[in-house]
């Protein structure tokens, strides 16, 4: 579904990603871990099409298409979804209006009829239950004045509405209490299918008890320096990143 080959990206001339290779098949869950500043969000942003980042080398093939060639909106319409680490507050844009515009633009791209107000509302209601999000939140401006947890929940709600093929969750678990974390994980699991794939970026093994990954990758200084199964996450929790940094240093010598 997604093939990343030797991806290099920089921002304002500073290289951040320095040769990422990753292969993701439908139905898989990949966890990406790594110390602060290692480039996890950068990778997520590059996949979603953030224009500030310049891809200097490598390629990304998504469903047989050159992903890097598509605009951010076309990537979304093709089924790529990024749950932001820091969702943006947008005063004056109502959540409902925003989501309906998004859903219908995606549908239009896929050659589907737009949803009328009634159908859209029932879709909203169904997905609201899934992530246990309060109607009151959605009647406000998008993310404006939402707590950290509410913002994260809203990301998963949007994901549920847009029903993506490839979801990238950038630290959706950070700052959530255990109940909220379960709700979020439950939402992700229910949306999971053999056609969909998920990338979970996290610092904490805790999330991976609920969203069980097929693969765990460690990103360090812009490269994936180690990959393993879910036991790697437990090991990282136990030992931290220093041993990996040492390994990297040793192989570099």
């Amino acid at each position, binding site marked *: 579904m997604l093939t990343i080959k030797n991806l290099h990206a920089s921002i304002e001339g500073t290289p951040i990603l320095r040769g990422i290779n990753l292969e993701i098949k439908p139905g898989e869950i990949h966890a990406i871990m790594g110390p602060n500043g290692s480039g996890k969000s950068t990778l997520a942003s590059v996949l979603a099409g953030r224009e500030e980042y310049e891809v200097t080398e490598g390629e990304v093939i998504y469903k047989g298409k050159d992903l890097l060639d598509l605009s951010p909106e076309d990537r979304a319409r093709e089924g790529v979804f990024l749950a*932001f680490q820091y969702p943006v507050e*947008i005063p004056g844009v109502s959540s409902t209006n925003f989501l309906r515009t998004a859903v219908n633009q995606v549908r239009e791209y896929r050659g589907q009829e737009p949803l009328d107000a009634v159908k859209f509302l029932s879709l909203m209601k169904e997905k609201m239950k899934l992530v246990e999000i309060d109607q009151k939140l959605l009647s406000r401006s998008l993310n404006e004045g939402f707590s950290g947890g509410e913002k994260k929940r809203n990301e998963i709600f949007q994901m549920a509405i*847009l029903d993506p093929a490839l979801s990238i969750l950038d630290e959706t678990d950070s700052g959530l209490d255990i109940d909220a974390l379960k709700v979020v994980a439950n939402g992700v699991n229910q949306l999971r299918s053999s056609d969909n794939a998920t990338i979970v970026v996290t610092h904490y093994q805790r999330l991976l008890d609920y969203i069980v990954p097929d693969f765990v990758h460690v990103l360090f200084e812009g490269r994936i320096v180690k990959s393993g199964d879910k036991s790697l996450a437990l090991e990282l929790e136990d030992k931290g990143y220093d041993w990996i940094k040492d390994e990297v240093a040793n192989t570099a010598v």
Partner: protein
Amino acid sequence: MSAVTKKDTSLSSSFLDSFYAQKPSGLFAGLREEAAKLLTHKGLPSAKDEEYKFTPITKKIEGNISRFGHSSPFDIDRTELEKHLVEGLDAHLLVLNNGFYDKNLSTEMPKGVRITSLKDLGDDANKIAKIVTAEKDPYAGLNQLAFQAGVFVSLDDKLVLDKPVLILHLAKSDEKGQTIHPRIYIETGKFVEATFIEQTIAVDDQVYFINSVEEIKVGEGAHIHHYKIQDENKQTLELSNTGVDVPKDATFTSFVLSLQSQMTRNNLSLNLLDSNCEGNMYGIYLLNGKSHVDNHTNVDHTKPHAESNELYKGILTDSSRGVFNGKIFVRQDAQKTNAFQQNNNILLSEDAIVNTKPQLEIWADDVKCSHGCTTGQLDDEALFYLRSRGISKENARALLLYAFAGEVLEKIENETFRKYCIQLVQERLGSKGG
């Protein structure tokens, strides 16, 4: 210093020459005499004038208009007129045709509303030029010298108007240009509730200079809304002086939507004369091309426990220019004043410019005043967030820009008019984005 400069020879002196050549007698002879003296002495503002340093309108007028002199009304029939009206807006129509009250085109006013052409005024004539004086602004002085047959509008006590009064200025010119000096005086009785909508219609693409003076004396406990749309032709040069007296327990709300002109300067001045009164000033300017809009506002708090709110927002693209200057004056007596002011701007191009300046002068010590001005670009992070959900770049831009302006549009209480403004704003933001 008092020598008449070369620059304003044509505009002010042409009116002065004709005044001195044949001094008018009659009702307003004294006012005209006074204005003539002031103009002779001071002339019209140049770029050296602090109040007009960003808005060289005198130069623009003299560069664009080659014939100065009194305008006269033109022929226009009702069908032609109706093409220009806000669709679906149910309103009483008050028409000024090149500055002249046009009784035939106006509709009959409801009971309790009296409209008199200024030239037919009796004792009320001595109320003219008490709120907006020639000293306040040289262009108000020029209007005082040159105005012809404007209107005096009076609303009886306790009148609650079910429909707005639409004050329609019709402007028509020719290749030489035209100068129009509308003059309006509105007084409302106690507890009146009324909405005035003011719109200038350019019936063709020719250049004109419209220099209006509007004085509004609000009655005690009255609630008055005053909305204005400035969506004229690309050549329009406009200057408006609006002065409002707001007494005890009264509320006055102004909203100005500026969409198209060559250069516009609005001077809006609210005098909060007593306790428990409220003055609101709202505005949106969406500018493109080379258009230039300057809003100078002034609110004067004189007594305790009054409130003023001000919010102006601008979206500018191409090489347009916006100017905002907001004065808040709180006198020593005016304790417990609440005064809020905001001016926010989004620049969509590198060549667009905004000059914004709050001017607070506060002599009382127990007041709540806040002001802020921001000028920035469209928020890239927000734009990316929307696009990452499948919304096209153009739609995302329009959503964000509309959300920015929407905060001001919400202040419009008349629903049909609000929807009309929303439509105008969306059309502008959706297509060219500013």
